[in-house]
């Protein structure tokens, strides 16, 4: 359901209809139906027992923590929590599935309904979530470098998954990626999943079809399986949209099929699959009777719910006066948001008066969105602690606010501090960095620049005011970036206009 009348983007005159299925691994200590460790990266077949190996005569027992985490995710997305839900057996034969069936929730999932607000260039709207349910992961097959056989590692077999199914409510690659990013952030913020895409804790299947705008029937849907990065989701969709449009416009039919995205070619290709129609032969899992969820279990999860990304962004805007777009970027990575907030608390307590707080806020925000964001993207969250921790970074920005360092000097020092693993202020001491603020010193620089460029001075006085920036730049350059730009401005103005 859309919050407002939302113009759907068209692709070569076609409307794209997409539903996303996400499988996310839950942050439990043990598996869903046995008490083997739920852990990535252990030596092959060391986290297995008769239950997850599918030996006959064993009995699965549902992990209480997995139920709790499912409920928490559901509360965060506004789902209805079923007081009674069911587990079924989903049958298929594959070597990574030792029982010959997967235990999943089919007839009555733990969670239904819910939604997630997305924001793209096309505006803001709600993507509705159809359902979320608990199920077990399969093991891992390995093929590479093995002639004539495949290897199976069952450490992952039985790891708890939450499958999150959106409604076919998404209409562009941008919307799909924004939905996935926000969903991942929500799961990480609530500690439901680590959302680690490289390790497979957050995997995505894309159901995509096209139709003419205004049509109320769906086109034939193609499923693209296991796309494991946001970039690939975008690429796979762009390719698939074109492929389907090409096919239909050439008078061909889109086949109902499962395809795989090949990152090396940027194309999707049909999976080599037996021609049989899949028939999962679901039936109630006799070993897992009804899952009954008590009110107290729901209440305790509701109380455990942390501030959600959306609420956090709202707070940054309302309480701190941060711009909406900036707030969105700040909350997108949790560690960065904490870093930002901790800095803001320090500035709040040291600022004298509202004006000086606002100045500090703007500097700090822009410092984080440029320098810190770049470095965390490049080097990871490590740069948020150690020599460039909040405390040290705030100290650096304090120097800018007091006028003893220029902002560009501070940025340079910050980058060097990370490179050399020293605190920024130690570097400032070491290299004798000070902002040039003395009137006489600056006046000398300004006068030198003006006498070096008589032509520009004449042109400026003749009305070419755009040249002002050139003079500022030249003075800054002459000072090796040390001049206080505000004072340079003042002196230049006085000199040129006087």
């Amino acid at each position: 359901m859309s919050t407002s009348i939302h113009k759907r983007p068209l692709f070569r005159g076609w409307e794209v209809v997409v539903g996303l299925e996400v499988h996310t691994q839950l942050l439990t200590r043990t598996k869903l139906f046995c008490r083997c460790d739920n852990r990535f990266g252990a030596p092959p077949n060391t986290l297995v027992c008769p239950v997850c190996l599918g030996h006959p005569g064993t009995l699965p027992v549902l992990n209480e923590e997995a139920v709790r985490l499912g409920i928490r995710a559901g509360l965060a997305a506004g789902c209805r929590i079923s007081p009674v839900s069911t587990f079924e057996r989903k049958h298929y034969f594959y070597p990574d599935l030792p029982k010959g069936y997967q235990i999943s929730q089919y007839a009555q999932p733990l969670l239904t309904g819910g939604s997630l607000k997305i924001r793209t260039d096309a505006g803001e709207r709600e993507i509705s979530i159809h359902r979320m349910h608990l199920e077990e992961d399969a093991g891992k097959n390995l093929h590479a470098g093995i002639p004539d056989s495949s290897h199976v590692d069952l450490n992952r077999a039985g790891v708890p998954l939450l499958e999150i199914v959106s409604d076919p409510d998404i209409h562009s690659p941008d919307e799909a990626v924004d939905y996935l990013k926000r969903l991942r952030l929500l799961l990480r913020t609530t500690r439901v999943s680590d959302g680690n895409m490289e390790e497979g804790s957050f995997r995505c299947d894309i159901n995509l079809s096209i139709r003419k705008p205004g049509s109320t029937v769906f086109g034939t849907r193609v499923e693209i399986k296991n796309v494991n990065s946001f970039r690939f989701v975008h690429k796979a969709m762009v390719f698939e949209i074109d492929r389907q449009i090409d096919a239909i416009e050439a008078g061909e039919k889109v086949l109902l099929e499962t395809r795989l995205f090949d990152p090396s070619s940027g194309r999707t290709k049909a999976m080599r699959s037996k021609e049989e129609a899949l028939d999962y032969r679901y039936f109630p899992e006799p070993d897992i009777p009804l899952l009954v969820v008590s009110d107290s279990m729901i209440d305790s999860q509701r109380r455990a719910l942390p501030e959600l990304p959306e609420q956090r962004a709202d707070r940054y805007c309302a309480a701190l006066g941060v711009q909406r777009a900036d707030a969105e970027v700040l909350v997108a990575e949790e560690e960065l948001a904490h870093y930002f907030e901790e800095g803001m608390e320090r500035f709040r307590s040291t600022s004298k008066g509202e004006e000086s707080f606002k100045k500090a806020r703007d500097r700090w925000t822009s410092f984080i969105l440029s320098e810190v964001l770049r470095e965390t993207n490049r080097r990871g969250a490590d740069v948020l602690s150690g020599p460039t921790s909040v405390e040290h970074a705030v100290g650096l920005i304090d120097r800018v606010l007091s006028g003893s360092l220029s902002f560009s000097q501070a940025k340079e020092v910050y980058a060097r501090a990370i490179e050399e693993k020293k605190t920024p202020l130690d570097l400032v001491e070491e290299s004798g960095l000070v902002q040039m603020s003395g009137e006489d010193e600056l006046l000398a620089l300004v006068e030198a620049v003006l006498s070096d460029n008589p032509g520009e001075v004449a042109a400026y006085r003749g009305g070419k005011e755009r040249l002002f920036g050139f003079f500022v730049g030249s003075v800054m350059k002459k000072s090796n970036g040390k001049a206080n730009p505000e004072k340079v401005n003042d002196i230049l103005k006085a000199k040129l206009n006087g």
Partner: protein
Amino acid sequence: MNLSKSDVLHVARLSALALSEAEVDRIAGELSAILNYVEGLSSVDLSGIPAEEGSRLPTALAEDLPVQSLSTDWALAGAPDRSGPFFQVPRILEEGR
């Protein structure tokens, strides 16, 4: 209820079983007999009795506390084939699932 040959072939394929012509005929007969036996239950009057209630009680939940897993050798002991720490199976041609 009598299973047709194509029903049997469908079920066989889902079960990844290869059946000879003679087996298909024999199994069609055997499965039909089983289905007919179970079908007898439908003559019981169940009106007013919910399908599942009573037979499906609240499930027990386990605390999320790890227990020692099997050693790899024990885990692989029953496998038809192994290679180092892995189960070894015939080459899988299909990708994904």
